[in-house]
């Protein structure tokens, strides 16, 4: 499941973005330094394969629902961890932009949840250890199944942690965990079965593909420890600073606003002072900022909220009007020309 912008706080979102960006830079350097530019087209095309594969669903017997490939583990098996991480990150980028899955800020979380765990934990530490150099169908099945389940469980736990730390959803940690982990157990089993099935198919049809993929990454030479330690440090560092900042001051921007307004108050005229208390009254109305205390008059708070809503709707209406006017005007401008008829190339025709 994809993390969504709407559930994220800026501190959590930017921390995960930082971690995802650092890992992307590190993996890109790894792929470039391996001097294997043959891999770059393979990465791109296999990432496109994951999309195409997700379009095919199979019916799960006796449930009425259908399953499809998630893709993280299979990319790790075919490309090795570094290249697979980049491929997964690019799949998620395209999903965030075109399918509106999650959003741009949540992209960092999604890359960590769905990229790091399968590539740097489930594949090297579980799948490779079980399957080894001489795959058999039983080993492929066990390895894929356990690796896929473990990867998705960690990913789901990541979603729970990010959501809880952000505090936008009211779901308590424990019940969210109890909800997400079993769902992802089912998803993980499907993912494991599909991955094992497809890899077995490839192994029977063209064993050299898997042998080559396995040979490209000598076992034991992967500095997984270094990656994880680096990642943990980055996360702890940024997370620590940001959460300190966030807990000390409920909200960084809010805090800086009060700091600024506090200084301004000293020299403020009555009008400005009045405005600023209005601003403070409004923020105090909001829960999380002491909303639920009732020692102030209800009518005053309700008045502020009504004013806020009225003002908000007005600006929104203004925006919609501006949008409509602009649209009408630009339509008028172009009515004689046909902007879409120019010979722009379309990817569809670029096979």
């Amino acid at each position, binding site marked *: 499941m994809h993390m*969504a*912008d*709407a*559930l*994220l*706080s*800026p501190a959590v979102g930017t921390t995960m973005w930082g971690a995802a960006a650092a890992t992307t830079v590190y993996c890109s350097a790894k792929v470039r330094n391996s001097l294997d530019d043959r891999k*770059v*087209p393979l*990465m*791109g*095309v*296999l990432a*496109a*394969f994951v*999309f*195409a*594969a997700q*379009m*095919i*669903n*199979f*019916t799960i017997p006796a449930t009425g629902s259908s399953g499809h490939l998630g893709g993280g583990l299979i990319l790790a098996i075919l490309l090795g961890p570094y290249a697979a991480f*980049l491929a997964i990150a*690019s799949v998620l980028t395209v999903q965030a*932009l075109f*399918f*509106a899955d999650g959003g*741009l800020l949540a992209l960092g979380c999604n890359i960590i949840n769905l990229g790091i765990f399968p590539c740097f934990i489930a594949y090297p530490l579980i799948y490779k250890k079980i399957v080894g150099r001489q795959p058999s169908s039983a080993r492929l099945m066990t390895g894929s199944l356990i690796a896929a389940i473990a990867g998705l469980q960690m990913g789901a736990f990541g979603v729970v942690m990010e*959501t809880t730390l952000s505090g*936008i959803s*009211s*779901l308590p940690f424990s019940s969210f965990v109890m909800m997400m982990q079993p769902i992802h157990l089912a998803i993980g089993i499907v993912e494991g079965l*599909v991955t094992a*099935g*497809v890899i077995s*198919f490839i192994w029977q*049809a063209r064993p050299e593909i898997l042998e080559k993929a396995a040979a490209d990454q000598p076992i034991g030479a992967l500095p997984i420890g270094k990656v994880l330690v680096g990642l943990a440090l980055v996360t702890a560092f940024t997370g620590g600073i940001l959460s300190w900042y966030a807990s000390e001051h*409920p*909200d960084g921007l809010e805090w*800086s606003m009060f700091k600024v307004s506090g200084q301004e108050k000293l020299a403020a005229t009555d009008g400005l002072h009045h405005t600023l208390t209005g601003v403070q009254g*409004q923020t105090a109305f909001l*829960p999380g*900022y002491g909303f639920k205390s009732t020692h102030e008059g209800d009518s005053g708070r*309700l008045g502020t909220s*009504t*004013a*806020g809503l*009225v*003002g*908000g709707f007005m*600006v*929104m209406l203004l*925006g919609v009007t501006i949008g409509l*006017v602009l*649209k009408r005007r630009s339509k008028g401008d172009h009515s004689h020309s046909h*902007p879409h008829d120019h010979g722009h190339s*379309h*990817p*569809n025709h670029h096979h």
Partner: protein
Amino acid sequence: MSSKIDRAFYDIGHLDTLADGDTPLHRLDPRAKLLTTVVFVVSVVSFGKYEIARLLPFFLYPAVVIGLAELPLGFLLKKLLLVSPFVIFIGIFNPWLDREVMVNLGPLAISGGWVSFASLLLRFTLTVGAALLLIATTGFGAICMALERLGTPQVFTVQLLLLYRYLFVLIGESIRMTRAHSLRSFNAKGRITYRVFLQMLGNLLLRTIDRAQRIHMAMLSRAFTGEIKIVRQFRFGYKEACFLGGFGALFLGLRLTDLTVLLGRLVLVAVGK
């Protein structure tokens, strides 16, 4: 089911066609649009969980962009609806868990949970909408270029471009496979069993790997050195600076001051309340 595949395929193509438009907004340097979108999303997300009123002015930005770039509102809304289930699924627990009454509108008592649920839906619409608007005004190739100019490693952006280029080919292939299957399986009504599914996927993967090899050879024979050169030139000029600076200042202003209450008070005073 195959109509669902066709639909997704059509949607990507449609967004891409929109990005081919030729309006002042389409002509802006992609970096300006990318950075503006980032400022927008961070501003929206940084509000407290019960905020509603101060999120509303942020609809100004999508309205202006849709107007300027001549985008079809209905299509964008439909895309938003399609992906809303996860956020609704998580958010709908808020009214159950947070029952403390927050606002009294006459006889109607509204709990904090409903307020935060409404806020969640607004955030969702704004943030996801912003991402869709970015792609519909910029196009994927230009976004990749912007990412590269902003410091993303080239291996990653080249790979993104290749993914996008071959997305259409491979999706077309999987559409043909499922169509062929459903034409040959009257009794199964197009349903695909696990065994058949694996064979289809395995075949698709083998074809994909072979295709990747052919692509690589073709690229090498055309002097591929690890980077893709884009002919289209972009310049971060004063228009871009105005766009980014103007909207950036607006978002920060809306975030740091409370225009809505001031405006609302003015209106309420004007109508004599």
